[in-house]
């Protein structure tokens, strides 16, 4: 069942010599016995980034045979749904996304709110009319986004383009184009690797991964206790289950939307089951007042939270910030990103009501500081906090860490390989450097180009890349650039209208 640690060279596998070579020839792959598949465009990652790009190209008339999606995922939203579900946004809850950010529909019309309105929920229509002054921003339910994407997936015959497997690397090909090395699932192919030879490659690998904070990992290694100290991005239903059976004290760390959702879940449970849950909320940075660098760049803040409707100011998707960032370079761009970044959470009335009730009744309390260490004492976790009031020590039934540290792009080995062997570089924010067309700078090879979209490209000329709308804007830029090279038809007014009607009638293309 087990296999030796250093397997002998298998036919159709990479060798050290091949891995060390930057540019490959067709002959090298033939020598290694790696089969080669020709296809004009390869997109890998296979999440919503790949899906939205494939969707755009299919609408531009590219046949399914010209695109291959290399992915380990079952569905494009699998990874996204996993993360939203464990961070307390199941299908029935609302995402933090705009009404018109519709990954299943490149036109953004009809928007989610309109769809809900057409199904009879007129309140949502009224909401989008008066937001954000008279109402909080409308946001779609997670389930609505997933079911709509599922419908679109079948409409564009997405499954025909999918090849299951794990992408190991992309290398330039002598003479132009690229080889994308795929590791198919064990037993699915006669060789260990398959090479896809393509003129264009689209990289949409998403978040390189989370990184749980070191203190959490340390606690787990030392105590073997995976149950009391959890990250909000992993399944932690047992925390709520335990509190339902026995009153307890919870420490919640973080000031982002996930912290908001975890607090909502704790307080919802508290109200519904009449529990006596005590919550201590630990902020590293406490925001007491509105803040910002200029009168037009103010962000609301109170009670520790920084408030913002979406994860970026709205003008990054189509307003002045989009224009401003598009023209900046280097340190100036990094400064702009820093200004609009920072952890924040939307203002939502139900959250405000719950927390103010908690403050008034004394079961929700706030601390400012950082965790020094955590130790297990019996069933409880003893947490030492370096707070602004000096060192504090408290015992908790559970610690929910709502800080999501993102790993460096180098932790993703395909991105690391691009940096090391294919000429890709880093942008001012440290992620993958892309042009305005989302071509990865420095990787052009003959007539071939590599594009990238999604979180890995944050810090480029367009902010907000790791959002639904950001992925669609990237897909649009990529499709336009491909069209300029003769791939796909132009999406002019005529095609756009006819394609929209096909979408509306759910006609397969």
């Amino acid at each position, binding site marked *: 069942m087990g296999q030796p640690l250093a397997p002998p060279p298998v036919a159709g596998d990479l060798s050290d010599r091949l891995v060390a070579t930057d540019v490959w020839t067709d002959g090298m792959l033939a020598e290694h016995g790696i089969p080669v598949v020709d296809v004009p465009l390869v997109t890998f990652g296979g999440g919503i980034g790949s899906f939205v790009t494939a969707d755009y190209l299919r609408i531009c008339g590219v046949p399914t045979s010209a695109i291959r999606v290399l992915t380990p995922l079952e569905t494009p939203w699998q990874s996204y749904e996993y993360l939203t579900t464990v961070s307390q946004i199941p299908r029935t809850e609302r995402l933090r996304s705009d009404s018109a950010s519709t990954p299943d529909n490149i036109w953004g019309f009809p928007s989610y709110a309109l769809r809900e309105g057409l199904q009879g929920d007129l309140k949502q229509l009224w909401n989008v009319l008066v937001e954000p002054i008279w109402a909080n921003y409308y946001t779609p339910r997670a389930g609505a986004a997933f079911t709509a994407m599922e419908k679109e997936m079948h409409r564009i015959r997405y499954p025909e383009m999918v090849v299951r497997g794990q992408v190991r690397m992309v290398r330039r090909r002598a003479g132009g184009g690229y080889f994308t090395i795929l590791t198919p699932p064990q037993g699915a192919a006669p060789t260990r690797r398959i090479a896809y030879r393509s003129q264009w490659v689209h990289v949409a690998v998403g978040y390189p*991964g*989370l990184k*749980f904070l070191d203190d959490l990992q340390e606690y787990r290694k030392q105590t073997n206790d995976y149950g009391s100290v959890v990250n909000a991005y992993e399944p932690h239903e047992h925390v709520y*289950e335990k509190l339902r059976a*026995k009153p307890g004290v919870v420490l919640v760390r973080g000031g982002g939307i996930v912290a908001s959702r975890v607090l909502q879940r704790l307080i919802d449970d508290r109200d519904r089951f009449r529990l006596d849950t*005590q919550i201590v909320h630990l902020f590293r940075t406490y925001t007491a007042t509105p803040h910002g660098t200029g009168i037009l760049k103010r962000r609301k803040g109170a009670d520790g939270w920084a408030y913002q409707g979406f994860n970026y100011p709205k003008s990054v998707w189509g307003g002045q910030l989009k224009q401003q960032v598009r023209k900046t370079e280097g340190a100036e761009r990094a400064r702009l990103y820093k200004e609009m970044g920072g952890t924040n959470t939307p203002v939502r009335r139900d959250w405000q009501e719950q927390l103010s009730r908690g403050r008034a009744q*004394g079961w929700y309390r706030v601390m400012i500081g950082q965790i020094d260490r955590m130790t297990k004492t019996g069933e409880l976790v003893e947490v030492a906090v370096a707070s602004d009031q*000096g060192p504090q020590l408290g015992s908790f039934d559970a610690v929910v860490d709502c800080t999501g540290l993102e790993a460096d792009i180098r932790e993703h080995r395909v991105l690391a390989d691009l940096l090391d062997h294919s000429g890709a570089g880093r942008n001012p924010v440290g992620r993958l450097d892309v042009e305005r067309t989302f071509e990865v700078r420095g990787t052009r090879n003959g007539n071939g180009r590599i594009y990238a979209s999604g979180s890995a490209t944050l810090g480029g000329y367009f902010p907000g890349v790791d959002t639904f709308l950001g992925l669609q804007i990237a897909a649009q830029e990529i499709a336009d650039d491909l069209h300029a090279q003769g791939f796909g038809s132009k999406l002019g007014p005529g095609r756009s209208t006819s394609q929209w009607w096909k979408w509306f009638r759910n006609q397969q293309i």
Partner: protein
Amino acid sequence: MPSSPLPPIPGRSGPPAPGRAAPALPAPASAGAATVPAFDQVAVSVVPGSDLVVRMPGLLLVVVPESAPPAPRASAGLDGWGRSPGVRQAGHPVALGAPGPDRLAELVGLCRKVSAEGSRAPGRRLQETLGGWLDGQSAMPSLAVAAATEDGLAITLVGSALAQVPELGLRLSADEGDPLPDGTPRLERTVDWPPAALRLSAGTDPGGSPHPLADLESGSVPGGAAVLSPVAAPSSTGAFGPSTTAVRLPPPGAVSGPTDAPTPPVVSSAPPPRPAGPSEPPAPLPAPARSANLLAPAEPLPVAAPLPVVSSAQPVTPLVAEEADDRPRVHGFLCSRGHLNDPRVHFCALCGIRMAERTGVFLEGVRPPLGLLVFDNGATVNLDADYLLGREPDSDERVLAGELRPLLVVDTTGGVSRHHLEVRLHEWDVLVIDAGSANGTLVAAAGAPGWSSLVPGQAVRLTPGTAVRLGGRQFAFQSPHGGF
């Protein structure tokens, strides 16, 4: 108190022997087990002497060391040293089973094993294990063992060993029991805890009384006799505070230490009643255990050398270091930071990195805990071993053999059987098997419309969120490894 508090407990006084002499001690008027001091809290003082006194959690052993020193090896080839004293004996192998340091080590190892497995009352199990071991020995040196049971002491005496309560004039010797196969006297008996000091000796008791402050907490020391005091040691002399002996679980593996902090094994008491009315504003929390004021002038700390800079990069494959421990091992995939994971998950359970960052390196490593059982009273059990749940799980032979870990489930409705349900870890799965319970076991997966009952003996895999009901109690299975 009765004047003779060392009676055999009926039915528990070792294997019944036909025609065996009546107990030397008359039965007491009342049971003396009302207030039994925890064995590990009482003081043990050692009387000087040449035998060996060994104390470990739950038991006390006095043994005569080997009678003959080991023969020196023949020193052929060492010129100038003269004739080796061992040469005389060369060619005469030591008789099989003769006393020697190896056998003594084996005996102590046996005791240590039972002590480690037997929670705070290893007495009965020790008597069984030791009895079996002694039957296979010949020419056994004298030894005396006293070990805690739930309500008294289990005493084993071999050879010329004695157990006495001098203040009450009580005395037990090995001659009163069944001899070993080779004729060496041996006594196995379960007795009430005497209300006065118990004196154990193996060979010749040197007499005299120990130093009043002498106290052996644990370890092996030379001594002629050991005196077990009848009351808990005062905290000033005994480091065995009540907390150290509250509940002892067998450690999950050979490697012990803070990482193996055991889960309390008793899921006792019915679930607490829910508050009837809407929750009141709660009482303020107790103040933090320690706090300091930043405003107060701080005492200057001594200047220390700067700590080494630790980079955030984490070493890959720490598995090599864990080779030594014997916890269960499974096959799985390593994440790019070197943590072993279930092949089916997409994110590492320890650090959160995507599993896609590394080509599946399928290898064997120590299995992390597979999840938690969350009981209806809020108790949680970390799933790092196989468990037997029930009203009296301790009495199951697989529990006694150390194969399953006991988990006592207290149910006031009486619906939980003595051996009710097994929870077994298989590879990366958690299985439940009804152990032939009287009232059956019900399971409901997350989102299932209703309960379904387990077929006895048939394993069912638990998925995260599955609820399991036995008698009037219920628990849910939750896993950090994701739902699949």
